[in-house]
């Protein structure tokens, strides 16, 4: 299968690869997929004043899965929580020119974004409750 130039670029020069400490303040972590399915994505966001100031990923999976998560971190940075919710897998498919057999990679990336946002919200809600 031939990969699009953008997938190859993200694969060779992944953006924001790495990890934040999970318990660090303002960090939301999403982990989706399963080793048995051949792909696991970990996506993390760092939020300050409702804005995602940084994002990181680690991915076990094919080149398209790595590219999808790398692209997701690029898109997340600088967005508000509300804006981040609007990222759709179809946007990723379009940007990376993914073939039909690789659409599940983009779905996984969207799931990872949603999971990271949910984790952040759960943590910040918990912090608010604690404060009370």
């Amino acid at each position, binding site marked *: 299968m031939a990969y699009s130039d953008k997938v190859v670029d993200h694969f060779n020069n992944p953006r924001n690869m790495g990890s934040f400490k999970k318990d660090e303040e303002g960090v939301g972590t999403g*982990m*989706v997929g399963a080793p048995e399915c051949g792909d*696991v994505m970990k996506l993390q966001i760092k939020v300050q004043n409702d804005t995602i100031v940084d994002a990181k990923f680690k991915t*076990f999976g094919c080149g398209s899965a790595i590219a999808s998560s790398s692209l997701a971190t690029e898109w997340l940075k600088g967005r508000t929580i509300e804006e981040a919710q609007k990222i759709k897998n179809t946007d990723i498919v379009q940007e990376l020119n993914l073939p039909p057999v690789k659409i599940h990679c983009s779905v*996984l990336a969207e799931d990872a974004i949603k999971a990271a946002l949910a984790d952040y919200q759960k943590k910040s809600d918990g912090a608010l409750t604690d404060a009370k």
Partner: protein
Amino acid sequence: MKLPIFLDNHSTTPMDPRVLETMLPYFVEKFGNAASRNHAFGWAAEEAVENARKQIAKLIKADPKEIVFTSGATESDNLAIKGVVEMYKEKGDHIITSSTEHRAVLDTVKVLEGKGKATATYLPVDKFGMVSPEDVRKAITEKTILISVMLANNEIGTINPVKEIGKIAKGKGILFHCDATQGVGKIPVDVQDMGIDLMSFSAHKIYGPKGVGALYVRKKNPRVRITAQMDGGGHERGMRSGTLPVPLIVGFGKACEVCEQEMVKDTARLIAMRDRLEASIMKALEESYLNGHPTNRLPGNLNISFAYVEGESLLMGMKDIALSSGSACTSATLEPSYVLRALGVGTDLAHSSIRFGLGRFNTDDEIDYTVEKVVEVVTRLREMSPLYEMAKEGVDLKSVQWASH
């Protein structure tokens, strides 16, 4: 050293220049139809075909008359299995085969089952990928007419105890078909000694041309009969109609001759290179696991799973080396290699497997380069892998509740 490097010699092989040279006159000058019995063009073609038949038969210790030319091993497998099932339907309908056979065998058997023309037993393999002769014996019923077990596996290179299986088949008067596509030309094959009644193999796996293969069909003790699957001029003793592709057959013959003459030398070279590749990779990369049998496997085969990294991404990272992976992402289906699964390799490690297939034209420099690349890419992708990170933190990945999709 030239890039890209070809290390996928189980899928196909480059043609040996000596083979090509032998073929060339049979395209333009000696273009006759081997079935034309009444002029010089036909005689020349027939002579060339018969010479090739001898060369091929010699490699597998058969009689030249027992060689039936086909388009390749897939056709040979189809012809053998469907041909036997149709011919011997009065005798029974049960086939014994193994779960790691090539798709050309498995799918053929499944189609026959689906049409109600056969019943089948799919034998399991041990953790090295070997079929147990005892399992074969136990699976035999009064209705068994055919045992079909491969000589060497195309993914893991494991060599089956074919001789023992042949003996059991003979003892029970059941025909034994062997898909020897990966073994012929690479390891010694003797259809007499191994008790094989039908055997499939092809030219392009042994440095010959694509588009030609053979089915060995035993002529005596017993005389095996098969129903032709294509109707026409009754070529190849009525078993496979169709004008013979003379240049391809000439090339096939020459390829067999070269294999026979150089097997000892080729094998020694391949084993030395393969073992060095294996040792260097294993030494440099922790949690790399060999798939298949440690010693009883094809000289050019090496199949390794690299924990925590996915096969297709490995291939992508090593784009100047032609390799293959058992990862689902490299296949049309969403399942990873059924061969590795049959060995009991976990789905996760099946996704992480790479098959190195060394051949006659690989060099030591290429092996050095490959070692360097594999270590570099696996290390880089592990740095990128959340699974590797978790394992390093001491998390037991098996205990994690994964959100499967």
